């Protein structure tokens, strides 16, 4: 049975984060008066080596068998304190944390009430701690394969690093080709092109046999636990096989023409098409949504590469971890915002990049509305820094840099074009500041605004009225072409992704990572890793870097070959179970089944499948089903302590 509880209470100052609003000494003294509490201390930083050393010594000195730490949120340092008490020989689940920082000192201004609340929280923690039992983690073998979702630069880099490390990688990309948004990016710093970067990465992927690429494929189902995830991939039909030699005959015959999303709508493409020069796999693809299956392409193809009857197939993969690198969407200004959509000389930065790119619709010539503009203006922060009603309230980080790169490229190719950049703050951070200097030398004109400019279409062209804050004057600039430097927004289809992978999104709509600063590439749920612009706006270099960082984190999870799971699974008390089957239907993971013990049908929990949600134990009429770590008596003790009814 549970040995006689000897509880040690440790209160943290957290510098003056807690000490400023909670009288830690008073709480420590109060803790001594609580039942089962043998000793209580308070120290500046409990999470530091000194703090942890203090806990270890106290456990040995008073042979404590329960520890309560009143400090920050368990999501911050529960693992730290667990390993601390484990190294003192105590089972690491005999720990209860009282959150007196985020839930108390940071949230309340009145010091006296906050101290009172801290005492209650410590009392609740001690009440539960006294009833805690030692638990053992479950170890499971791990499959050394990784699913990378998204074939952009981040996903590709993650796949390459994982494969070179020794894992088997499934690279799943929704579009018919790898490369993502970076392939459509034109010029980058030191004269590199997005397509070249993508090409280098694709070459590395092609000659690495550990990477299995599935394009035109999407994740439909995802379940299991870290190290043993089950992923169901649906590979949509491409209708064209390897025999295709990219001759393009079929494309000529195809009657259907739609706007080409690989040129952001600047040119049109056929139903059967090849995305762009550096696309991989180098095979044509038929766009299922618009193809009317007229069969013209089949007739035109001498190599018999096209088969319109191809069906989609689904794959069931058993993977150890998943790297989500699904990237972002460019912000699409609503019609009328800065007169977008009312004049075809008003384009977005992404479209401009396509125009300046050799593989673009105009082979790199800056032809907007049929002619090379004499005057072109960029408006920054479109869709970011809530400049317009439908904008997001964050800075999209990369639009300044890419705007200046393209402005410099325009001035290099067409020196006598007048280029204006309307900005709030030029965010060319780090070494990109040289871009700001080069833009100056290339005679690019900068106009600072605070109130967003207004764009109106007049007979003689586009006129931008803006109040230039540094000269305190309202000026109007007639231009021939206007580029809206749009920012990055979360993908439209992100909700399906969240539904399947259980990730969650933060205030800015991008997927939330565990900690913004210290683990930017891990999702709160173990085994799920985030790379690239899926967690927030990034430029190509940062996305690539996040890709390899995610690979590294996957390696830390899977390198040992086995993984330990949290022991908060459900467990049945056979004597009390009446076999009423209520729990069996409830379990979303189908971890509960009935088995016969001395001729009575009794519930049985398969620990490998149980994720520890506790729904079954709440519904069990007889209380036979209990969740380790959150047993009814433990929670009841907390409830009683919370209302002050129980221990006074």
């Amino acid at each position, binding site marked *: 049975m549970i040995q006689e509880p000897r509880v040690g209470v440790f209160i943290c100052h957290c510098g003056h984060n807690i000490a400023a609003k909670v009288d830690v000494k008073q709480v420590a003294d109060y803790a001594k008066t609580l039942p089962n509490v043998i000793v209580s201390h308070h120290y500046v930083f409990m999470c530091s080596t000194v703090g942890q050393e203090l806990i270890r010594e106290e456990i040995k000195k008073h042979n404590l068998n329960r520890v309560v730490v009143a400090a920050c949120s368990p999501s911050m340092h529960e693992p730290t304190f667990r390993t601390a008490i484990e190294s003192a020989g105590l089972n690491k689940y005999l720990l209860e944390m009282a959150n007196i920082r985020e839930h108390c000192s940071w949230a309340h201004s009145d010091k006296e009430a906050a101290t009172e609340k801290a005492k209650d929280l410590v009392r609740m923690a001690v009440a539960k701690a006294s009833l805690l039992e030692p638990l053992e983690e479950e170890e499971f073998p791990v499959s050394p394969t990784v699913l990378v979702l998204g074939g952009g630069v981040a996903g590709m880099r993650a796949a390459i690093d994982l494969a070179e490390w020794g894992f088997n990688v499934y690279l799943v990309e929704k579009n018919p080709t790898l490369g993502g948004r970076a392939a459509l990016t034109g010029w980058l710093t030191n004269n590199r092109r997005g397509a070249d970067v993508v090409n280098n990465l694709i070459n590395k992927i092609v000659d690495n046999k550990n990477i299995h690429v599935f394009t035109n494929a999407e994740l439909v189902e995802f379940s299991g636990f870290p190290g043993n995830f089950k992923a169901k991939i649906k590979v949509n039909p491409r209708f064209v096989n390897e025999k295709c030699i990219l001759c393009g005959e079929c494309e000529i015959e195809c009657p259907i023409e739609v706007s080409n999303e690989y040129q952001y709508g600047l040119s049109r493409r056929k139903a059967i098409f090849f995305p762009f020069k550096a696309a991989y796999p180098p095979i044509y693809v038929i766009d299922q949504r618009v193809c009317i299956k007229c069969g013209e392409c089949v007739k035109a193809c001498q190599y018999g590469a096209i088969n319109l009857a191809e069906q989609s197939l689904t794959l069931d993969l058993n993977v150890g971890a998943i790297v989500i690198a699904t990237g972002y969407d460019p912000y699409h200004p609503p019609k009328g915002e800065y007169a977008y959509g009312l004049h075809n000389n008003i384009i977005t930065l992404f479209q401009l990049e396509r125009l300046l790119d050799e593989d673009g619709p105009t082979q790199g010539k800056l032809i907007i509305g049929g002619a090379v503009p004499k005057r072109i203006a960029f408006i920054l922060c479109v869709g970011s820094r809530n400049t317009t009603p439908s904008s997001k309230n964050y800075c999209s980080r990369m639009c300044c840099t890419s705007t200046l790169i393209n402005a410099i490229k325009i001035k290099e190719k067409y020196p006598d074009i007048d280029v204006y950049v309307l900005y709030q703050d030029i965010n060319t*951070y*780090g070494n990109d500041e040289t871009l700001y200097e080069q833009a100056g030398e290339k005679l690019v004109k900068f106009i600072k605004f605070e109130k967003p400019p207004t764009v109106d279409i007049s007979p003689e062209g586009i006129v931008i009225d803006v109040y230039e804050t*540094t000269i305190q004057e309202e000026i109007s600039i007639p231009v021939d072409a206007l580029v809206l430097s749009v920012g990055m927004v979360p993908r439209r289809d992100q909700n399906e992704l969240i539904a399947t992978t259980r990730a969650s999104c933060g205030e800015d709509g991008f997927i939330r990572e565990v900690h*913004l*600063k210290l683990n930017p590439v891990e999702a709160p749920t173990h085994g799920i890793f985030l790379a690239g612009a899926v967690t927030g706006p990034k430029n190509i270099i940062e996305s690539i870097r996040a890709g390899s*960082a995610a690979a590294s984190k996957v390696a830390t999870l899977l390198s040992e070959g086995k993984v330990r799971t949290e022991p908060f699974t459900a467990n049945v008390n056979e004597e009390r179970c009446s076999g009423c089957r209520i729990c069996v239907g409830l379990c979303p993971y189908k971890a509960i089944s009935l088995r016969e013990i001395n001729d009575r049908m009794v519930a049985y929990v398969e620990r490998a499948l149980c994720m520890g949600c506790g729904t079954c134990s709440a519904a069990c009429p007889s209380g036979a089903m209990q969740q380790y770590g959150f047993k009814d008596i433990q929670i009841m003790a907390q409830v009683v302590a919370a209302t002050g009814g129980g221990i006074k």
Partner: protein
Amino acid sequence: MSKPVLVIGGGISGIQATIDLAKHGVEVYLVERNPSIGGKMAQLDKTFPTLDCASCILTPKMAEVLRYNNIKLLTYSEVQEVKGNVGDFTVKILRKPRYVDWDKCTGCGTCTERCPVKVPDEYNVKLGQRKAIYIEYPQAVPRKALIDYSHCLRLNPPPDLKEKAKGKPLCGACEKVCPTKAIDYNQQPEIIELNVAAIILATGLELYDASNIPEYGYGKYQNVYTNLEFERIVSSTGPTNGNIIRRSDGKPPKRIAWIQCVGSRDVRFNHYCSAFCCMAATKQAILAKELLPEVDTTIYYMDMRAFGKGFYEFYKRAMTEFGVKYVRGKVVKITERQDNKNLLLFYEDTIHSYMKKDEFDMVVLSVAVRPNRITAAPVKTDKGGFIQIMDPYMDTVTSTTEGIFVIGGAAEARDIPDSVTMASSAAIKASTIAKKCVVEQTIITSGERA
């Protein structure tokens, strides 16, 4: 076990790379020049934009470094020489003498109380004092004492005391009082030689010397601080344990100004932008407002660069919730008023287009950052001293020499999230090489090139 990997520099990026490598099952040597790992982040009080306390998120990582037995910590040591190529680097490391036997020392600190010599404390950017025998800071890892040779009366007695003592050893207070008899005055420097598969340079950043810009009067005027000094002042473990007081009269200031781009974005000093000082200044302004609610804080900037995740909301919160004032204009000159040692800032308020002079009790300079000199490693550096990356669009961390990776501030001025991401990125590449070396050894006999 595979061939080890060497990480040079124990700041947050070095620590993160070391932990990742350890989790990959690779043996890691972490070399750090100071007595303790933690780097610049250990000197910070809070970090933007989440206002977590820096040591709350750093100390657990430092503690984690001690928990892995495949991490070998070599602090207070410097890399003398690096030779060889990828998969087979031979490295000479000089372990500077600490004059304390670190196996016996428990870090109890009684020796520091007895030591008579007071010396300016580098951890508190010379604002506070420490003894000749000292522990770098309370949460240091490893938490061990060491003697500062140049100031210790026993090891290096000043000439006048020397002849007075006529050959008799002086002082020795720490030896008398040390409970575990850990003091060892004749400890010698030792050279350690390692053969490693890959090297990760995480040598980090240091502040540019603000006295190179005489107009700001840093060093001359008492109430002009660098942002690191102010960080120490506002930190609860700092020299003034958390209350903001002026150096000239010890009273809390009523008006504090932050000046951005001191030595950055300036062709006369450093062309590049130091990336994080806009947000660091905003954070410090919020900290000042939290400690002194009625203080008036103003930040003089040219472009407020709030580009990262959560940064712009943080900047907006500082403006609306905490009432931090932002003025667009570059402060070019500071003069000190003789009577109350207040400071007059000369700037043009570019939103109203005329020159203004404002008086402040305290001025904090957001000084540019420079990379720490790394002489031993055979890598090319650009004129600013930053280590060059071979191809930023390919794998963003390999330096010009294959097998040597560079992360964090050593390659470009950058903030903590980017440094940590770079650290993990270098870790996977280094452990791939290290793993290959193992394979290489076992099948070398069959002559097949891995």
